[in-house]
């Protein structure tokens, strides 16, 4: 079963053709890595799946509904690359506000603070936190409503290795609990942690398959090389 179906999606942003005839499926209860260089269309694709991107043509279906349907606002969590939280409030105040909007149970704020390891810093204004800490507040906000689909745009950028590992463990736990995750990254070393990979470049999908299969089909030993083989094959 696929949580997300994208068919022949075309998006034009300003003068750039951001996505060209993109089709893909994001399998349910799995971690799908969306990999590609900066400017390849990862964010645009994620925005289209969340339903905040104006599209030119094509169809995006999320959890059985057209992307952007009002019913999905409780079921899809989206974390933008730049942390989208209120800098002048504390982490706790931010989460308190967002939890009221999604109608999260009392005590949920405490749980997500623990999940992203921010309990200790929760009473400091978000502005005074480091970039990595701010992005964890942003991630925590998306976890509040226990979404069925989590769309995370480069959630581990700038994090220290220990924390990165912990977050990936959290992602794994969420997937084991039934959630579907779509995680973008421009670093290949995170690809190993995904169940499924989607490689994107210049607004086109180069390949979609599990990591091991990708190595086999490209006859390469690591994913960086596999990506290169695919790029050269495509041009």
């Amino acid at each position: 079963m696929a949580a997300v179906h994208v068919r022949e999606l075309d998006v034009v942003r300003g003068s750039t053709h951001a996505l060209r005839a993109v089709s893909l499926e994001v399998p349910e209860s799995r971690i799908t890595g969306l990999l590609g260089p900066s400017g390849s269309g990862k964010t645009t694709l994620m925005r289209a799946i969340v339903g905040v991107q104006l599209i030119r043509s094509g169809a995006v279906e999320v959890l059985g509904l057209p992307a952007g349907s009002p019913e999905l606002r409780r079921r899809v969590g989206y974390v933008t690359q730049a942390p989208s939280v209120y800098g002048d409030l504390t982490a706790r105040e931010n989460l308190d506000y967002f939890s009221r909007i999604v109608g999260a149970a009392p005590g949920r704020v405490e749980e997500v603070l623990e999940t992203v390891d921010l309990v200790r810093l929760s009473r400091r204004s978000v502005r005074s936190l480091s970039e990595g800490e701010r992005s964890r507040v942003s991630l925590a906000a998306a976890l509040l409503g226990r979404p069925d689909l989590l769309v995370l745009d480069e959630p581990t950028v700038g994090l220290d290795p220990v924390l990165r590992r912990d977050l990936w463990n959290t992602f794994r736990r969420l997937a084991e609990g039934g959630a579907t995750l779509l995680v973008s990254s421009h670093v290949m070393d995170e690809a190993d942690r995904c169940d499924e990979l989607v490689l994107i470049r210049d607004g086109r999908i180069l390949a979609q398959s599990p990591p091991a299969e990708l190595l086999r089909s490209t006859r390469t030993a690591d994913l960086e090389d596999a990506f290169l083989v695919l790029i050269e094959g495509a041009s």
Partner: protein
Amino acid sequence: MSVHVTFATALRVLRQLRRDPRTLALVFVVPPLLLTLFKYVFYGQPETFDRIGGPLVGIFPFVLMFVITSITMLRERTTGTLERLMTLPLSKLDLLAGYALAFGFVAAVQACITAAVAFGLLGLDVAGSVAVVVLLAVCNALLGMALGLFASAFAQSEFQAVQFMPAFVLPQFLLCGLLVARDRMAPLLEWISYVLPLTWAYDGLQRAVDGGDAALIARSAGIVLAVTVLALALAAATLRRRTP
């Protein structure tokens, strides 16, 4: 629409303001100071201050709320929090009503402080009711807020948002009848003044200060609130769930 979410939004906006004591101080201290300045600028012609001082109590909230809301909403757009809110189960009305509640509350406090200074310390007389002046001041603040929310959609930076203040507000301030009676302006300007909301805001305030006809005060307040609702509807239209 959810009352719960509206109140949560109002609380959030107020918490943000509380984190910025300098802005709050400016909001509460600047109007009484300006009013004091007016008094001594018109030292040689106290009858002018007596005429414009009372209505000014209700005009300051309009100007200040315009600036504060347009910048608050602009920040909401530029930091991505608006996009986040638009992906959540929050209706646009919840957001706008939350803003209205929070800024209406701040405006009420501001108007009370300014009124206390004006009618207490500065010796301005009010033939009507001070409570009505304060009530009209809150209406005007909501009008400023609604126009500010709408204007913020056209600003790409805080610098631009600040520039909207002279563009949107100053012409209305000049034409509303406060400085010069409208029937003494060039006829074209007088006609234009009829369609500007601040004209009606001033009209109501002036009548309230002079103890004028309650029905006419209510008519002016009604016009101000109708324009406020219109501006809020336009502001809601600028909150897009999908963007290019």
